[in-house]
């Protein structure tokens, strides 16, 4: 850390704040990647369990926003760019894992949670088709009132098709809260929302950190195919491709043999098959049964 910067502030800042900032700075310097996470709306017990889950790979550190900003500026080194993300309820997250891995881990740690009346839907809320398991009663009306296609079937209340009951961005009504709660639907994903990361000199935004693992998986398969193709087509044998190489060479010989009608014992069965297919092909175009061999008459 910068001693001179710390010294400059000594007389204007209370002792406890100075110590807190010093601890924050120490935290920031301990990790290769440091990010700002949004912790708004996370119940403290859930936050505790997330901290435990991250233990060993990432650490969460909360403080007052003013001190958070002060620590970032103190470390400087590019980290001050993260002050853009400090607003509302936020915390530091630090890791020596790479920022893509951190993002993945934070996303994976998110858990579903119920949504309360007055809250804004973070995504479309859908009540899925199926048997609700609720006995016939006023609940049918409640479902219908919030916009779900519901009726009584086989002695219980069914939702007859996937029903979108609220658009993303719209507030949740009292009635909807009640229905969702009755059905046990938890439409929110609660967790540490990464706002931005600074890692070894580079700032990353969440959309840059969202990696499509499927795409990498298919890239690996495509790369393996490319190598196989090159190995076979350039006739460079490798452990995995030698059988294919042999089959290709044998196929070449067979193709040439059939194409040129070479009288070779290995080719003749194919040639005979080909001749037979040709006769059938011609026969298929002849209408006059009299002209056809008996075995090919319709």
């Amino acid at each position, binding site marked *: 850390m910068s001693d001179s910067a710390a010294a400059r502030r000594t007389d204007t800042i209370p002792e406890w704040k100075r110590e807190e900032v010093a601890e924050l700075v120490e935290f920031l310097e301990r990790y290769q990647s440091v990010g700002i996470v949004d912790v708004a709306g996370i119940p403290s017990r859930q936050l505790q369990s997330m901290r435990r889950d991250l233990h060993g790979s990432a650490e969460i550190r909360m403080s007052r926003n003013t001190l958070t900003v002060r620590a970032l500026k103190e470390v400087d080194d590019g980290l001050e760019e993260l002050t853009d993300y400090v607003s509302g309820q936020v915390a530091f997250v630090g890791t020596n894992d790479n920022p893509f891995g951190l993002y993945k881990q934070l996303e994976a740690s998110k858990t579903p949670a119920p949504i309360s009346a007055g809250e804004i839907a973070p995504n479309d809320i859908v009540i899925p088709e199926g048997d609700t398991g609720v006995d016939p009663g006023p609940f049918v009306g409640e479902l219908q009132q919030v916009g779900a296609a519901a009726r009584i079937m086989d002695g219980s209340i069914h939702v007859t098709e996937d029903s979108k009951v609220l658009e993303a961005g719209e507030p949740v009504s009292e009635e909807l809260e009640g229905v969702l709660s009755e059905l046990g639907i938890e439409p929110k994903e609660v967790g540490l929302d990464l706002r931005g990361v600074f890692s070894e000199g580079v700032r990353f935004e969440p959309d840059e950190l969202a990696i499509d693992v499927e795409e990498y998986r298919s890239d690996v398969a495509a790369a393996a195919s490319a190598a196989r193709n090159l190995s076979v087509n350039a006739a460079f044998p490798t452990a995995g491709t030698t059988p294919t190489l042999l089959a290709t060479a044998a196929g070449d010989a067979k193709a040439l043999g059939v194409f040129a009608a070479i009288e070779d014992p290995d080719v003749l069965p194919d040639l005979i098959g080909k001749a*037979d297919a*040709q006769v059938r092909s011609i026969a298929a175009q002849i209408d*006059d049964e009299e002209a056809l061999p008996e075995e090919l008459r319709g």
Partner: protein
Amino acid sequence: MEYVYAALILNESGEEINEDNVTAVLDAAGVDVEESRVKALVAALEDVDIEEAVDTAAAAPAPAAGG
């Protein structure tokens, strides 16, 4: 099938596919030739594009040769 094979040989040799030629090929192979079938085949093949029919068959995946 032998009548059609005879026509195919004539097609490859470039000889005309007529009654005399088909009969000659079959005779040479020891086939007991039925004149009416030869007639019918020759007449029927007048309307068939043999090259195309042969190519169509060739383009099809040929059968797996018995192992």
